[in-house]
Structure formats: C-alpha cells, structure tokens
C-alpha cells in the first residue's frame, strides 16, 4: 500500500460564491489509500467541496494544503463539450502533464501509458473512436483512464456514475475498487455520488455534506443499504 502520509489538509475552510458561504467550518485530513464517498442532498455543495479540494475554488476563509502535486480529477462527462472531435486516445493522453516550455510531446512512453490505462478500463479497442461518440459509461471510463495517466496520489471524481446505466455503473465502481486494492499504487480516492447504495460497498468513510457542514462518518461496508440510508437520512436521492 502507498504510505499513509497526509495528502491533503483542510483547516477551518469555508467555500461559496461571492459573499455567500455554501460550506463552512471544514476540517479534513486525507491520507494515502483512503476511499471516501462524498454524499448529501442536491445543492448541498458536494461539487463545491470537490472543487475546493482540487484548488479550483479558493477558500473564503481557512486553508487547503495539498502535500502532493500528483492530483487527478474526473469531471462530470457532460461538462465537456462534444464539439471537440477528440479521439479517445488523444483524450487519455491529455492526462499526462508532461510538457517542456508549454509543448506537450506524446512520446512513446506517454502513448504506451495511455494504451495501458485504456486497457485497464476496458476501452483499448475504442482508442481510435471519437470521445463524443462513446456511450456515457464509456466516456466516464475514458475520463478515469485519463486521470490515471499521472499516477495520482489523490484522485477526485465528480459523480462518475451519473447518467450511466446500471452495468456501466458497476464497471466503474469495479475499476475504482481495483485501484483501491492495488498493492503499491493505491491512490486516495474521493468520489461524489448521488446514490448511497452504489458506493456503500466501496467507501470506507463518507463525507456527509448538508446544511453548510461536512461531517466525516465511518461506514461498515457490510451494513445493509437500508441501515446506511437510515444513518444518512435517506441519502440515496441526494
């Protein structure tokens, strides 16, 4: 297992828009190998929290400290414009941050890494296809492959199972499960989800986002979905 050193620390942070605070009083410590689900009702600020942790949104007060540069994220697939005729392979190569003076070379090692990641998510045969032409589930898996290109210590995913059919959801969670058990390269994974039952068997802890607060709660993966839903106030619709 990757060492359990702290990858991300949040101290008394508040996030919001303009002068409006959506979330406040956040204290968090994320360490290597952890698997956390971010759950909560619609509009509670799950994505705001994720963007704050990524550094895409500055905290209004407090601090977010990332102790690793190797951070990757998977956006919601519908945030990306279908107007770009990117091939799936080109999309995955984007995940490699290697550049020299702003020039990004797709060296042989980058291309080989991209093929391995595509193979890992079961999309190697789709490498030449346009990203926009893939199904929702395939697109999401391609985005996970892209995120893995930098060998992240910390992987953040924004509703990767949203708008995806059940078999694809299971595939995506299966890939994340495999990542979490990889012996020497398990990244810490934070995943925003809208269905508790999907992540109940995967996440060891839940960040419950509601009423402007973030509560960290441990979950027993053997608990039934009904019991968990009771604990999290019927979060499956969140």
């Amino acid at each position, binding site marked *: 297992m990757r060492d359990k050193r702290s990858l991300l620390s949040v101290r008394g942070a508040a996030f919001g828009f303009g002068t409006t605070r959506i979330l406040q009083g956040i204290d968090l410590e994320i360490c290597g190998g952890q698997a956390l689900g971010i759950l909560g009702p619609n509009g509670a600020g799950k994505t705001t929290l994720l963007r704050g942790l990524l550094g895409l949104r500055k905290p209004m007060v407090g601090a977010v400290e990332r102790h690793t540069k190797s951070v*990757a994220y998977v956006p919601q697939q519908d945030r990306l414009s279908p107007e770009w*005729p990117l091939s799936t392979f080109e999309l995955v190569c984007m995940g490699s941050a290697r*550049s020299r003076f702003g020039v990004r070379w797709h060296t042989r090692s980058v291309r080989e890494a991209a093929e391995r990641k595509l193979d890992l998510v079961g999309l190697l045969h789709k490498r030449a296809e346009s990203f926009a032409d893939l199904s929702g589930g395939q697109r999401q898996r391609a985005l996970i492959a892209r995120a893995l290109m930098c060998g992240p210590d910390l992987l953040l995913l924004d509703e990767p199972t949203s708008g995806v059919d059940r078999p694809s959801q299971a595939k995506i969670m299966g890939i994340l499960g495999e990542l979490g058990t990889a012996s020497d390269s398990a990244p810490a994974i934070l995943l925003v989800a809208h269905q508790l039952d999907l992540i109940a068997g995967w996440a060891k802890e839940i960040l419950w986002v509601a009423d402007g607060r973030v509560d960290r709660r441990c979950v027993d993966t053997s608990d039934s979905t009904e019991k968990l839903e009771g604990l999290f106030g019927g979060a499956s619709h969140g």
Partner: protein
Amino acid sequence: MGDFPLDLLWELFGNSILAALLAGLVVPIVGAYLLARGTGFYGVTLPQLAAAGIAFGFAILAWWQENMTWLVDAIEHGDEAHLALPYHILWASVFCLGGLILMARTSKSGKGEAGHVAATFAIASALTILFAHMSPMGEVFVHGLLRGEILAIDGHELEILVIALGAVAVLLALFRRSLTLVSFDPELAKVQGMRLGSWEYFHLVIVGGTVSVCVMTIGPTVLFGLLVLPPLAARSLAGSMTGYFLLSSLAGLISSAGGIWVSFEYDLPLGPCLVLVAALLLPVAAIAKRAKRKLA
C-alpha cells in the same frame, strides 16, 4: 482562362494565387479552434472589426500625417508602400485585439456571449462604413476589401503574409495540445498547473494576429469563409484532433484552389468564389459522413 497565357497569368496574379493558397492552408486551423470553443461567430466578427480598424486608419490618416511628423518623415524618406502596410495592420490589430479582449471579458462574466459578439459585429459593420466615408481613398480601398478583390497583392504583402501565417502555423503545431487542453477542459489544465490566463491571451494573440494581417491582404470576405467553412466541413468527418486540423487545412486548400479556378474561368471576383467553393464542401462532408457511418 483558356485564352490567357499561363506565364502571363502567373506574372500578374502569382502573388494573389500564392496568398490565397497559403491562407487556405493555415487560416482554417485558427478557425478550427474558434469553432470547437463554441466561438465560431468570432470568425465573422473579428475580420469586420479589423476592417473597421483599417477604415479608421484611413479616416485619421490626414491628422496622423500632420501630427505624427516622425512617421511622415519616415514615409518621405522611405518606401511609402512598405510603411503603409504596417500602419494599416497596426489599426486592424488595435481594433481586432481590443474587440477580442472585450468579448472574452464579457463572456467570462456570463452575460450572454453570443449576444455580445453579434452586437460587436453590428457595431463594427457600422463603424467600417462610417470611417470609410470620412476618407475618399479609404472608401475605395475598404470597398475593394469587402468585395474580396485579392488580385492586387504585391510582393511585400505576400512576404508579410508568409511570415505571419508561417509563424502562426509553427506556433499552432507546437502548442496545439496545450491550447486544446485549456480550451476543452480548463479545469484539468488548472489542476495540472497550467496558467489559464496566459494561454487564453496567447490564443487571442494568435487569432488577432492572423485576422489583422489577413484582413489587410486577403480581405474580410475570404477570411470569414476560411475561418468558418473548412473547419465546419472537417469537424463532421474528423475522428481526432489531428484529423480535424489536417482536414480543415485540406478543405481550406481545396476551397482556395477551387475558388481560383472558378474565378479565372468565369471572370468573377476571387474572394466570393473561394467562399462559395468552401460552402460547397459542407454538403460534400455531410454526404461523406453518412457514407462513413454506413460503412462502419
């Protein structure tokens, strides 16, 4: 064209033919980015802004010559034609880059980008006519530009075009992946530590520079067409970004070559012919796309 000796044709119009072919090769790649970023309408508005800048340059030329004595001296002692071109490109750049930055700022504030770009086009069109009206010389020149008469390109103009478009082609070839990333997924680019603002301005300078130089040489009509139509045709067929750029460039080259042939064959203005040939590629691309799907 059949009765015209080829060597004489080349001697008279060689520069214009080369300029049209070069623009056909490079300008569509710049347009490919505009289209993919959802800012295709910039392809119509920016040349109009640059044309307004050129007309403005003519409108204040007398004042400029009276007050900017250093420039007047330079013109008197130098080659007037060589100095006139940078003067007009300067004003085209000021209007084009100014408009670009203004439009980019309004789009960031989320106040309805399309409406702002359309309004900018309307204002630029009106200003072009008004500024041109203030100078008889400017009126003739701008009218020629808008008609797409690109048959009078001299060697110096061609040199400027080769240098400018050559630089744009090299920069786009080198930085295409970074530009694609910051445009397609700015959040990932930011997470990877890229400076979004710097890349945005770099893109604006490439677009603004291309438009400013091209509008003065090949004119806004040809520029409208090459920025928008070839990439639009290419996008429906391309399955990758590399393919998109190459097909855009190829479509632009075909448009230029086809436009030149039609223009000389039927004695029509080159600019509009080039644009209409480019427009013909749209249904051709649609048919090819359908055939490709059937074969797949």
